[in-house]
């Protein structure tokens, strides 16, 4: 059946299919509404392995923590397959013998007896995990006592008074948003790094470290006197010590640096209040010496020593680049500007490699211990996000980029980190592990998302890697309901045996996480798709194509490649993939460009690719490395809807003629008498057409007789507010007029169907922009338009030589 997604916005071109679940299930699994899993090309699966590079390969987007209110509250442990290398969880797709009280694992076909407590079960009285509608189910493990989450604030003090006080206020405010039992800690840094002891009387104490010297976890443990743990208990970074599922051991007494909020609330508020700017003199022409690298290292080390395997967040607030010590991204001389993309290309970024190594290692360490790293970076210049990105990217932490801690962008965004759901629980989860189990014909070859590989080999790990592969488990140190990861699969023919026609491939996603309420939970999602023969039933396959999801997955892959490969290579790769797809699924006669047709399911895919190619994710021109990192970070973690917005912004048009309508993201949509609202995910642009702008400048909206004009002006603002209220991170709000300087945000996104080039070509005379009554506004660019792009695509797709 076809499930239409509820539209958040009027999305004229996004229509998603999940494919059909035609199961031969003896237990009449009627339907599985699996909104978490956007399976791409899952139905039917091509039987024969298509070459790895073929675009519509087998992959999906998975949102582990999708908020759902229909989950039954289950407070017992899941039933596991007894085969030691399977351990799949009982699910509705399993075959169950109610009389003999056994079940057959649908992954390894092991016959398992039910535990004793299932004795009373009958076909009429099924446990929830066998009810087909609960193909997604969440267990709450009651026996595991999980300590409260940890919030470690790492605060830069090298900023001016105003910035710092705003930041202090924001953090003080956030204390009230945290659960009172949360453990909090404070680290401040500037030239040096200070770890504050909390709750001491009479004399405020802090431990100070040099900002130029990195410390290993062990050194830190000795220096801070963190002796509560026997040495061997600290899991080495990356070692499988703090394995998911293992309930983190409750540590001994609360240590001096991390204390329950409820007991040190006042102290911390005062401490933050007394926090001064970094006192070291910054000479003329120099940058402040800022030891972000060491501060972060100390923070990671502190949590590593004290609470390995216990969910926590390190919240790093930086107001500038790290200028000394490990993790340095620029030196303190203002003569040397911070590296640009150009420098990186030319290999001129002298600190970059070392810094990346430093932060990457930190990210891995933090991830291994289950601690997320958030970076809140507010500065007019870059702060080194390009180097630091590994910390949030590996750990699932947030990355927020703004201009100032005093901006509402930062304040609102930061507050939203602590948003709560209707039950009053923080909308975040900690220290999660995602495990993927597949049936025999499928292997998992990797994941791309805000996670790290746990390096766990199992029978369902493919040999080829895509993204972070070689494992069937990944660690997400922090999850939000929108965190989404891409997972890639591979089809293998075991021992050359053909996959039986009509059979099904099954996938089970097991997510264990620490809920913000302090419970350990396990969410299990099991899905199945039929097999189809790619040669015989190509139509079936193409009918199951989900172009939206495919576009997003393609974007993730492209960005993943772009991190390591040269930009132009990636573009070529994207093009090649698109051409192959068109060749495979297009209908055309060879070498006849005009005969090319794409099926409905594919029709929008080239357009997504067109915008992806032009997007800031793959084009670094005009973006700093930090911005690029930030954009890519968001694309890497957001769910499908948001990702699509990022790739291809939404454009609405407001006019007197009727209700707001979505319009093409095209220069032709720019009309003098319209107001446009563009949502690029990162920015919300309200664009007043020329006439509207003039009217507004004349103040018509203030006149009572032009109330309708006032309403027209307000309509997009109201809508924009709605978006601004809900999105994380809060987008930049831009209100501009046609011809205004800020209009570039819109002009850079629209398809340049009209440019200064083709205007001459069409009209042959000097076109006056205002005169284009229905033609929109030309964009001054040399970029090709969608039409040109499509022409080329068709030509190449039908070309027999390509």
């Amino acid at each position, binding site marked *: 059946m076809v499930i239409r997604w509820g539209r958040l916005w009027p999305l004229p071109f996004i229509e998603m299919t999940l494919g059909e679940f035609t199961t031969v299930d003896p237990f009449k699994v009627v339907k599985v509404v699996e909104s978490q899993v956007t399976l791409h090309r899952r139905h039917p699966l091509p039987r024969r392995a298509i070459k790895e590079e073929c675009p519509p390969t087998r992959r999906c987007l998975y949102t582990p923590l999708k908020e759902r209110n229909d989950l039954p509250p289950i407070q017992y442990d899941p039933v596991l397959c007894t085969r030691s290398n399977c351990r799949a969880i009982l699910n509705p797709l399993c075959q169950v013998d109610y009389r003999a009280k056994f079940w057959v694992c649908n992954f390894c076909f092991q016959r398992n007896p039910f535990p004793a407590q299932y004795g009373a079960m009958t076909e009429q009285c099924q446990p929830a995990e066998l009810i087909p509608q609960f193909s997604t189910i969440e267990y709450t493990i009651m026996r595991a006592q999980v300590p409260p989450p940890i919030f470690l604030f790492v605060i830069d003090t090298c900023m001016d008074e105003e910035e710092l006080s705003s930041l202090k206020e924001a953090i003080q405010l956030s204390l009230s948003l945290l659960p009172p039992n949360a453990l909090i800690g404070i680290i401040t840094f500037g030239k040096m790094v200070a770890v504050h002891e909390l709750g001491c009387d*009479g004399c405020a104490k*802090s431990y100070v470290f040099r900002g130029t010297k990195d410390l290993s976890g062990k050194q830190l443990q000795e*220096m801070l006197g963190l002796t509560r743990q026997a040495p061997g208990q600290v899991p080495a970074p990356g070692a499988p010590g703090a394995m998911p599922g293992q309930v983190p051991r409750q540590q001994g007494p609360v240590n001096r640096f991390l204390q329950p909020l409820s007991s040190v609330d006042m102290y911390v508020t005062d401490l933050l209040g007394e926090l001064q700017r970094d006192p070291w003199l910054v000479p003329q022409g120099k940058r402040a010496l800022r030891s972000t690298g060491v501060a972060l290292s100390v923070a990671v080390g502190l949590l590593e020593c004290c609470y390995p395997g216990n969910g926590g967040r390190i919240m790093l607030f930086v107001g500038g680049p790290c200028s000394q010590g490990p993790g340095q991204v620029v030196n303190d001389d203002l003569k040397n500007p911070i590296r640009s993309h150009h420098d990186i290309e030319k290999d001129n970024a002298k600190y970059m490699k070392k810094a990346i190594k430093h932060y990457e290692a930190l990210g891995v360490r933090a991830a291994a211990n289950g601690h997320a790293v958030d970076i809140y970076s507010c500065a007019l210049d870059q702060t080194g996000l390009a180097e630091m990105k590994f910390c949030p990217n590996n750990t699932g932490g947030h990355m927020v980029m703004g201009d100032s801690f005093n901006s509402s962008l930062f304040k609102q965004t930061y507050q939203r980190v602590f948003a709560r759901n209707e039950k009053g629980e923080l909308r975040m989860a900690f220290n999660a592990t995602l495990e993927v189990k597949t049936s025999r014909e499928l292997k998992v070859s990797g994941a791309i998302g805000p996670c790290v590989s746990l390096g766990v080999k199992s029978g369902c790990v493919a040999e080829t890697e895509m993204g972070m592969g070689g494992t069937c488990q990944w660690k997400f140190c922090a999850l939000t309901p929108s965190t989404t990861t891409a997972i890639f699969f591979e089809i293998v023919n075991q021992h050359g045996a053909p996959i039986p026609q009509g059979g099904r491939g099954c996938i089970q996603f097991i997510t264990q996480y620490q809920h913000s309420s302090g419970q350990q939970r396990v969410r299990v999602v099991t899905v199945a798709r039929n097999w189809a023969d790619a040669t015989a039933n190509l139509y079936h396959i193409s009918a199951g194509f989900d172009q939206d999801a495919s576009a997003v997955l393609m974007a993730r892959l492209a960005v993943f490649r772009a991190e390591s490969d040269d930009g132009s290579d990636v573009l070529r790769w994207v093009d090649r993939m698109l051409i192959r797809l068109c060749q495979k699924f297009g209908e055309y006669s060879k070498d006849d460009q005009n005969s090319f047709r794409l099926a409905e399911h594919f029709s929008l895919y080239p357009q997504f690719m067109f915008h992806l190619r032009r997007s800031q994710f793959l084009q670094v021109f005009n973006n700093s490395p930090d911005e690029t990192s930030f954009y890519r970070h968001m694309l890497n973690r957001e769910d499908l809807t948001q990702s699509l917005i990022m790739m291809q912004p939404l454009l609405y048009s407001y006019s007197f003629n009727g209700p707001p309508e979505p319009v093409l993201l095209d220069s032709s949509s720019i009309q003098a008498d319209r107001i446009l609202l563009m949502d690029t995910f990162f920015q919300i642009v309200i664009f007043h057409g020329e006439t509207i702008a003039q009217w507004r400048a004349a103040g018509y909206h203030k006149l009572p007789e032009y109330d309708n004009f006032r309403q027209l002006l307000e309509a997009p603002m109201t809508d924009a507010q709605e978006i601004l209220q809900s999105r994380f991170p809060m987008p930049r709000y831009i209100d501009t007029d046609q011809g205004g300087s800020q209009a570039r945000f819109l002009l850079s996104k629209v398809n340049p169907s009209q440019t200064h080039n083709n205007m001459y070509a069409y009209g042959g005379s000097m076109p006056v922009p205002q005169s284009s009554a229905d033609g929109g506004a030309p964009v001054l660019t040399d970029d090709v338009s969608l039409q040109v792009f499509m022409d080329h695509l068709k030509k190449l797709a039908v070309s027999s030589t390509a």
Partner: protein
Amino acid sequence: MQAGAYNPQQQLPNLTQQINSLSINGQPQQGPGQVKQPPPGPPQLFPQQGLQSNVQQPPQFQPAPGPGYRPPQQPQPVPGGFPPQIQSQHPFPPQSAGQPPQANGYAPQPQQQSYPPQQPQPQAGPPHLGPPGPGGYGVQSPPQPGGYMGPPNAGYPPQPQQPIQGQPQGANYFTGPPVAGPPGPGAPAPGQYGMPLAPGQYPRPPGPGGYQPNLPHAPSGPGVPQYPGMPGAGAAAGTKRLDPDQMPSAIGVMQEDQQSRGGVFQTNQRGLLPPLVTTKFLVEDHGNASPRFVRSTMYSIPAQPDMLKQTAVPFAIVVNPLDNPARDEQPISCVDLGPMGPVRCIRCKAYMSPLMQFIDGGRRFQCLLCKATTEVPPEYFQHLDHQGQRVDKWERPELCKGTYEFVATMEYCRNNALPKEPAFIFVLDVSYNNVKSGLVNLLCSHMKSLLENLPSHTPVGFITYNSKVHFYNIDSSLAQPQMVIVPDVADMFMPLLKGFLVPRAEAINAIDNLMNQIPAMFHDTKETDAVLGPAVQAGMEALKASERVGKLLLFHSTLPSSDLAPGKLKNREGDRRLLGTDKEKTVLTPQNTYYNNLGQECVGAGVAVELYLFNNAYIDVATIGQVARLTGGAVNKYQYFQADIDGPRIIGDLAYHLSRPVGFDAVMRVRTSTGVRPTDFHGHFLMQNTTDVELGAIDAGKAIAVEIKHDDKLTEDEGVFIQIALLYTTIFGQRRLRLHNLALNTCGQMADLYRNCELDTIINFLAKQAVSKSIDSTPQAIKEGVIARCAQMLATYRKQCANPSMPGQLILPECLKLLPLYVNCVLKNDAVAGTQELTPDDRSWMMYNLMTMGVGQTVHYFYPKLIPVSGPTAQLDNPLPIRCSRDKLSEDSAYILETGIYLFLWIGASVNPDWLQNIFGVSNLAQLNVEPITELPDVNSDESLRLRGFIRTLRTERQRHMRLTVVRQRDKMELVMNRFLVEDRTSDGHPSYVDFLCHMHKEIRGLLNQ
């Protein structure tokens, strides 16, 4: 060092010969019979029982055991009946039979009353203008029949002018035929008379002046042991019976000098020998530096280097550059020449001084040091008067004074920037030891009052440390002090910028607050480790960060043994038995170079480190003290510290320390006129080249000894000029130059040299040299070296300057009369010769102490002050010291013994109960629990007030709160105190004064006979 050098049997023939050949006042023989009527009450220093039994004499009752021997008739004329030479081996001391035996074998010491120093009498004739004939002492040791060595007579032939009766030394003087005055050929220069004590009144019969105990002419045959009085030669040792009272007395010399030289001393003459350092005098600066600042070992320098070498007298100066003038003296003038800065010689860079000669109508000046002429800067030009002197000479201190200061200009400053006020940082070890001993509490509770000794603008800061280092932010704007902990002790740095160093007055409330917090924070500490090196580094970094120089006062308790911190030391106390052996340097030298490097770094940053050690165990003073040594600081040790007992001491010491004038970030340079050149420097400082003495800080109490050597021959009439320039920062943050100029004579005659020697300075220098050598030589070699040098000084004098005389005579130059005494004291001193009785720590501590002592301190350090404080003789307002000998202690009295480091109150067994009552509030000595007493109880009586006032004065003089140790007679502690009775033999075998003198005589004769 074997006894037997005086083995009478061997020396008998010589002695007999000698006696026969000499007409020593008609006392050729001393038979036992001659002493049949011993005068009442001479002291018996050496009861030598074994020997006495040989002559069937109960030794205890020996009434007149002094080594001095005199004929029976001689004592009678002596007023007070003082019996001068009583042979200790009197076989028949009938009078003494009735006297109660002393338990300790010591004879009663009735000589107290008659001992002259207490009744000094003005000398009729100035001692220096002795008779034409050789004055001096002659001590003869006539042969003893029966194998006894003749107790050498202290033959002091009276001077013709001086009636014996008038002598202060009633004893010891030959009253026999005054052979005095036969002007011996080659009568020695006046210097050889003028023994301050018995100044030259006793011309020895046969001629040459000087002090001439006629000691046995001991041929130092092979196998002849070196020293008398050593074990194994008891029999022989007992034979000498020199009366120690007849030996030249330090007390006497000092008193005589006080009388003759006290008053005003004008420094207007080149090469003027200053009064003794013990003498109270006022200095008028007329172009030469006051002896308070600079003392030279000699004031007439031989023009010929060879001559100096021959005499073996060291040429050195001891400088106390920052000392203060005495109260009634003129303060040191400070000259501010504005932006021009001090005027200096173009070549040698000497500073403008009275030594500069203006020529060419005042347009140029010639430097007397290097002879270069320099243009006078136009701003400084002044016309000359008819004498060639600048018209403004008397208006400008730098032209007419020996000591003055310049205000330094920017170029003399660190980093060419005017300095900020130097800071004081208290670095307090808060590990278990210090907390438990109560030190932390004590210091914190007294901190406020201690700080009041500092100027109100002086920045102060606080660091505490155990295995980590804690800085404190005492910014007055903070609600409460902040503690900032640096756990990375391996790589110390300064974590605070503002609020660490705050002017004392501003931060007073924050400090108060902090001082309440610190004891509370650490009161239950379990940390026993304390990192030392990082703590010093912390202080240094703090000062560096604030761009100040300053001082660290470090209160440390344990051997730094942490693996994590640099500067780890291992415990080598097990090696304490090495002291005194050839291997002792292994425990006296630093075990690693970390603390030396640290010290150098500190000096580089203008930081001085004062160590206050509160150890309960080995702490390796030798190694960690290097930090203090190189930075110009001092090591202060308070072993087994307990706040309730030792509290006043440390607080007192700190108060002295903080109130003392001090110069920071100093560089001292000694410039001399051509021909001589400073070579070796001794003291606490860092030298990275051969000329600049770098000091983190130097205070008024610290001295530096500088040895000067000849480069070349000097011309006789020109003199030697020395200019000592100390560039430093005052406590108020002003950069200044302090200059001391000293002009010395040159001489062609050796006798001039001997006449213008300064013995106290020589001893100070020799001792420092010996200590310096102890890290690369062996104790035996050092000791022998000192003795040999001493012997050579005296032998050369004897050979070159004294009248020809019998070789058996010991002739001492007047100025060096006390040389044997003092050398003996040096050789007994813990710093030089500490052996197993000391711990290596104590030994090192003593060595450090000695190295910074000025002449004024070493005098009493080597020859302690012993002052009667009870009974009628006690004159606490004008104390009269007595000789440092056990025999001088009377059972019914009490005494104070003071060395500058130790302070003992000795109470005789039968002291007057009233006195006890008045001082301690107990009537019986047995009731007195002396152990915990470190201060006299607050008893409201005149005597108590006076005594306490006296002790206070002593401590103030010493700038040290010496711990008072009360010793009852026959207490165990007496053994400790006895070590400081330096004229006596010590239990560990150091010879007594008399023994040593005899040995010295033998050495001299050995040299003469070569």
